[in-house]
C-alpha cells in the first residue's frame, strides 16, 4: 500500500477533528454543567430529566398549597379560640346572673355584656383569610353571618338563610305570629346544598385536605346551637320565663313552649363548648396531617432534586479530568500532525 501525502494530511485532519469534537463536547458539558444538551445526547436521560422537572415543579406547587392550607386553618383555629373565650365568659356571666342577690341594674350590665359577646361571635363567624370568609363554605366572597331584625325578634342569618328558623322565640310572642313568620320564610332555611361545601386543596399527587370548617358546624343550625343558647340567656335576662320552638316534624308545624331556666342553660353552654372542642380536635388532626405532608414534601423535594442532579448534572471533577486528558490528546495529535506533514524528501535534497 502506498502512503501518500494527502492520505497523511487527511488522516491527521480526520483525527484532529475527532479529538476536537470530543473536546468541544466536554467543554460544553463543563460550561453548562449538564450531561445532556439535546434529546439525542441520551434519550432516556432526557425523558427522566423532564419527568423529574415535572415532579419538582409539582412538589413546589403542593408546598405552596400546603402553606396556604395551614394559613387558612390557623385563622380557623384563632376563631375557635375566640369562641371558646366567649363561651367561657358567657358561662361566668350566666352563673353570676343566676345568683339571687342581683339588682336590676346588675342584670342590665350583664345583659349588655352578653349582647356584646354575641356581636363578637358574629364578628368571629365573619373571619376572613386573604380576603375570603373562612366559615362561609363556598360563599367566600359574601359575609356569612348577620343579625336581622324580624317581627318575632332578632334572628341570625347564615348565607342568606335563617340559621335556626325553628326558634327559640320569646314566650311573649304569639304562636300564630311565629307560625306565620315560619311559613313565610320556609324557603330560607339551610338545605343540604348549602352544607358540606368542603374546599379541597391538593397537597400531594394523591393527597388532599379540606381546609375549611363551615359556620353551621361550629354554631349549630337549630335552637340548641350557640346562638340559640345566647338568645335564651338574653330572654331570661329580659325577664322571660318561657321560650317557644317550632316543631316541624308534624304537619302542619306546631309551636311548643318550654320553661326558661338560667341554670339549665349552663348545661347548654357546656354542650356548645363541647361542639367547638370537637371541631377543634378535628381541625388539629387535619393541621398535623398537613404539617406531616409538608415534611414529606420537603423530603421528596430533596430526593427529586438530588435524583435530577444525578441524572443530568456532570461530575465537575470528572469532566475537568477528562477535559485535561482530551486536551493533551488533542495537542499530541497536533504535534504528531505537524511532524508528519512538514518533512518530505524535498527538505533534504539540496
Amino acid at each position, binding site marked *: 500500500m502506498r502512503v501518500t501525502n*494527502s492520505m497523511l494530511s*487527511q488522516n491527521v485532519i480526520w483525527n484532529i477533528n475527532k479529538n476536537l469534537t470530543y473536546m468541544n463536547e466536554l467543554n460544553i458539558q463543563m460550561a453548562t454543567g449538564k450531561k445532556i444538551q439535546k*434529546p439525542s445526547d441520551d434519550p432516556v436521560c432526557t*425523558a427522566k430529566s*423532564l419527568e423529574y422537572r415535572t415532579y419538582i415543579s409539582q412538589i413546589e406547587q403542593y408546598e405552596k398549597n400546603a402553606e396556604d392550607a395551614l394559613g387558612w386553618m390557623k385563622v380557623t383555629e384563632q376563631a375557635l379560640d375566640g369562641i371558646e373565650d366567649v363561651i367561657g365568659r358567657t358561662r361566668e356571666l350566666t352563673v353570676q346572673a343566676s345568683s339571687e342577690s342581683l339588682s336590676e341594674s346588675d342584670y342590665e350590665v350583664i345583659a349588655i355584656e352578653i349582647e356584646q359577646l354575641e356581636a363578637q361571635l358574629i364578628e368571629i363567624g365573619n373571619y376572613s383569610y386573604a380576603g375570603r370568609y373562612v366559615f362561609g363554605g363556598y360563599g*367566600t366572597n359574601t359575609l356569612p353571618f348577620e343579625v336581622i331584625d324580624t317581627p318575632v325578634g332578632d334572628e341570625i342569618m347564615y348565607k342568606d338563610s335563617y340559621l335556626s328558623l325553628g326558634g327559640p322565640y320569646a314566650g311573649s310572642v304569639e304562636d300564630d305570629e311565629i307560625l306565620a313568620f315560619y311559613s313565610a320564610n320556609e324557603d330560607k332555611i339551610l338545605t343540604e346544598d348549602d352544607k358540606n361545601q368542603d374546599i379541597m386543596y391538593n397537597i400531594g399527587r394523591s393527597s388532599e385536605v379540606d381546609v375549611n370548617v363551615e359556620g353551621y358546624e361550629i354554631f349549630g343550625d337549630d335552637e340548641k346551637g350557640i346562638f340559640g343558647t345566647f338568645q335564651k340567656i338574653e330572654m331570661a335576662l329580659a325577664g322571660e320565663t318561657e321560650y317557644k320552638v317550632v316543631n316541624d316534624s308534624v304537619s302542619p308545624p306546631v309551636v311548643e313552649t318550654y320553661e326558661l331556666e338560667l341554670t339549665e342553660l349552663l348545661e347548654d353552654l357546656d354542650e356548645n363548648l363541647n361542639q367547638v372542642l370537637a371541631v377543634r380536635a378535628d381541625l388539629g388532626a387535619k393541621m398535623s396531617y398537613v404539617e406531616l405532608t409538608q415534611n414529606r414534601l420537603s423530603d421528596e423535594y430533596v430526593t427529586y432534586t438530588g435524583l435530577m442532579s444525578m441524572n443530568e448534572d456532570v461530575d465537575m471533577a470528572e469532566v475537568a479530568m477528562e477535559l485535561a486528558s482530551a486536551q493533551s490528546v488533542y495537542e499530541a495529535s497536533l504535534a504528531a500532525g505537524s511532524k508528519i506533514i512538514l518533512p*518530505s*524528501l524535498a527538505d533534504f535534497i539540496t
Partner: protein
Amino acid sequence: MASTFAGLAISANGLYASQSALYTTNSNISNADTPGYSRQVVNQTNGYAFSQGNVMIGTGPEVVSVDRMRDEYIDKKYWAENPSLGEWETKSNILLEIEGIFAEPSTSGINSVMSDFYSALEVLSTNPTGMAERALLLQTGTAMCETLNDTAQKLVDLQQQINNDINMKVNEINSIGDQIAKLNEQIYELELTGANANELRDERDLLVDELSKIIEIQAEEVKVGTLPNGQADTKFQITLNGHYLVNGSSSNKLETYNADTSSTGQPLYGIKWEDSDIVVDPKGGELKGCFDLRDGTGENSEYKGIPYYLEELDEFARTFAMAFNEGVYGDGVKYSEGHADGYGLDGSTGTRFFTYDNMSSDDFMASGSDMESAYDNITALNISVSSDVENDLNKIAASSKSGEEGNNENIKSIIDICNDTKMFNQGSADDYINSVLTTLGTENQHATGKMNNEANLVQQIEYTRLSVSSVSIDEEMSNMVRYQQTYEAAAKMIDVWKEIYEVTINEIGG
C-alpha cells in the same frame, strides 16, 4: 547501416524522455493538493531498433503515453457508498434542527410551560375567586398554546426550507449532468486524436463524486463499438432510476413539480424528468434524506419525518384540549367533568377553555357537525385559549355549581384530568410529550450513528483511492533525482558525440 548522426538522435530521444518524465513529475508535485487529481506516470518503451551488421541496436526511449493512476473499481465503490453518507448526514443535520426547535431539556420548552400551566391550575384551586389567579391561568394557558403554535410553525418552516433545498439540489444535479456531458465530449474528441485526457477525466470523476452524494446513481464507461483505428469506442453513461442522466455528450434534465401540499397548504415538490412524466424517486443521497424528513409520516415503515412530529403535536393539542374542556379522552369516553361542565363566577357554563384561532366557545363547537369533528379542527398550529375566557376572566369555570364562588370542585377535577395517565395511550399529557421527545432523541442518535459509520466507510474507500492515485512527494522527489540524472547523462552523451563529430568532421576532413 545506421546514420552518421544516429548517436545524436538516440541522445535526443533520451533527453526528450527524461524531459517528459521531469515535466510529469513537476506537474504531479504542483498538483499534490489539487482535489481529484490522479498522479500521472510517463509510459515509455525503448524505441524500434535498427540492425548494425548482425546485431540490433536500440534507438533510445520512446514516450508512448502519460497515464493517470486510477482504479475504476475503487471509484465505483466510492460512488456506491457515498449516497448513504449524504442521506444520513442530511437526516442527522435536520433532526438536530428539530431538536433545536423542541428546545428540550430547557426552561422554555413545552414541558416547562405545561408545568407552569398546571401550577396555575393548582393556584386557582386554592383561590377560585382571585382575579390575579385567573389572570395567571389565562396567561400560562396562552403561553402553552403559543409554545405549541410556535413549535409547529417552526416545523412547518423547516419543511418548506427542506422543500427549497430539494429544488436547489435538483438544479445542482442538472448542472453537474451538464458539465459531465460537456466533459464527455471533450474527452472523446481529445482521445480520438490519440492524446490523453487525464485532467478532464479527473475533473469528471470529481463531479461524479459530488453527484453521488446528492443522489444515488450508476456511472460507467460502456463500450459501444469500435473506432476506425481499432480502439474501443466508449461512452460514459450515468443512470438514475434506470434512466440516462448523462449519455455520452447528451444529458437529460430533472425538474421539480408540485406533487403534494403540506398540512398548511404549501406546495411540496416532487422530481420528474423534464422530457417525460416519469417521476424520480431518490433511492439514496442527500435528496433521499430531504424527502424522508419532509414527507415521512412514520407509518407503513416510512421514516419519521416532520409530518410525523407535526401529527404527534396535533394529536397532543386535540386530545389535551378535548380532555381539558370536556373530560373526554382519546378513546372517546367521558371520564370526568371538564371545563365546559363547570361554572364561571358569572354563572356561565359550557365555556370551552381551549379552542382554535381565538374562536369563541360557541363558534368553535359549531365548527364541526358534532363535538368530535369540532375537535378535529384543532392542530398544534392553531390551538388557542377561547375568546370568551380571554375577554372575561369570570368565564373560567372553577366551580361545579352556579353561584358558589368559593367552590373549586371543577378546577380540581380538571387538575385530575391533567395528571390522568388514561388521557393518552402513552400515559398522561406529560408522558406523551416526553415520549415524542424520546422518539426524536432516539431517531437522531440512530441517524448520527449511521452517519459516523458511513463517514468511516467512505473515508476508508477514500484512503484506498488516495493510496493508488494521490501524489507522494517523496516518490516524486526521488523520481526527480532519477530523471535529472538520466537527463544529465543523455546531455553528457551529446557532449561525447559532439567531440566525436569534431574529430570526424574537422580533423579528418582537414
